[in-house]
């Protein structure tokens, strides 16, 4: 049970997405989840072990680390990816429910081809349009919220080399040194940039869906 399971679930959603949605999923898998697993986790792997304070006072390092990193970047990213991926499941559930209803009608005697039902491409219209649009809206909200949380918690997106700590039991003010600050800043900016790209893709998809429904309405009304 790991990111592969999430990928298996989301892969199913891919079939019912628009083209922009498919691009978003690809960006999510390759530039966010994969980068998180193969690179970012190693960079943050030794974060507390290599967080060094200029004091021998026991407990000072623990307390200073906890004060400056209430929740690690890597955990925040993991939560962000989980929350941002989840709205897509609303669409998967809606499609599964539609299929289930059709199967029920088939069982009750209506003539429906089972094979055609399995391979049927579900068009994004009616109730599914609303579900799909809501899922994109929630995705945007979660992305924005997490980016704001990052900015608020870490005073910007840069990782400092040195932090000055005077929390008890540190005597006076103590210099503490963060491990690999430049590498961490690089990855933070990278993840931020990819979040920005994902937000842009979601906005584009939202506009596309709204325009699609408007042009359809205007074609209907003579």
């Amino acid at each position, binding site marked *: 049970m790991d990111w592969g399971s999430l990928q298996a*679930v989301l892969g199913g959603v891919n079939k019912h997405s628009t083209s922009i949605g498919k691009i978003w999923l690809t960006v999510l898998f390759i530039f966010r989840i994969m980068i998180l697993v193969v690179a970012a986790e190693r960079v943050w792997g030794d974060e507390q072990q290599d967080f060094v304070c200029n004091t021998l006072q026991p407990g000072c390092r623990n307390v200073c680390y*906890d004060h400056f990193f209430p929740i690690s970047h890597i955990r925040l990213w993991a939560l962000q990816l989980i929350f941002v991926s989840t709205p897509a499941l609303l669409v998967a559930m809606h499609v599964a429910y539609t299929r289930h209803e059709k199967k029920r009608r088939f069982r009750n005697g209506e003539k429906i081809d089972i094979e055609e039902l399995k391979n049927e491409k579900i068009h994004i219209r009616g109730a599914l349009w609303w579900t799909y649009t809501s899922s994109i809206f929630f995705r945007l909200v979660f992305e924005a919220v997490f980016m704001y949380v990052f900015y608020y918690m870490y005073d910007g997106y840069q990782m400092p080399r040195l932090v000055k700590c005077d929390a008890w039991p540190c005597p006076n003010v103590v210099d503490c040194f963060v491990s690999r600050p430049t590498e961490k800043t690089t990855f933070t900016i990278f993840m931020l940039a990819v979040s920005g790209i994902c937000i842009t893709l979601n906005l584009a998809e939202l506009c596309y869906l709204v325009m699609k429904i408007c042009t359809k309405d205007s074609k209907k009304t003579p």
Partner: protein
Amino acid sequence: MSWGFLRDLLSGVNKYSTGIGRIWVAVVFIFRLLVYVVAAENIWKYEHDEFECNIKQPGCENVCFDHFFPVSHIRLWALQLIMVSTPSLLVVFHVAYRENREKHHKRRLYRSPGDIDGGLLCTYLTSLILKTGLEIVFLVLFYKLYNGFKVPRVVKCDISPCPNTVDCFISKPTEKMIFLYFLVATSCLCIVLNLSELSYLVFKHSIKCYLKRYIKRCQ
């Protein structure tokens, strides 16, 4: 043998669940199991190594850690996940029993072995009650063992061989507390889903029974 086994088991349960049951399975997979594996496990990974006491006395740190963390949060969390997922297997076993019976008698005994009615309804309701009960038990256990869901930065320890009272510092207390609250929130959400499903099934079948009796009386 790992969490993938639990995931496969629960996927089997999904087939015989109501809509709310499927939402419950999704919540357990994504917001509990996945968060546990990709985030929470790493926070508690070096909890003993990073637990530091302001003393050089050998054995003092070990004894204090054992006193304040009789069972680690992360182990309780894993036990909770396993216990809470297991009652759903009752439903899978009952459906398998029904299918076996049909095979044995070589004729159709049920409208559909996976339909939630009769004996299977009782099994399903029992599994819901068990799931809810176990969730509550674990939440109470967490609360009692750790004096609420807080993780302090410092604990004061005076157990032998520590001479006098010693300050011991827990690693990443804020991060641990955030994830504990997340655990509590998802547990409560699962309790609400289970209770809703219970009410929905009881209501649906009461209406069905009442209508049947009413039709009989009219005839």
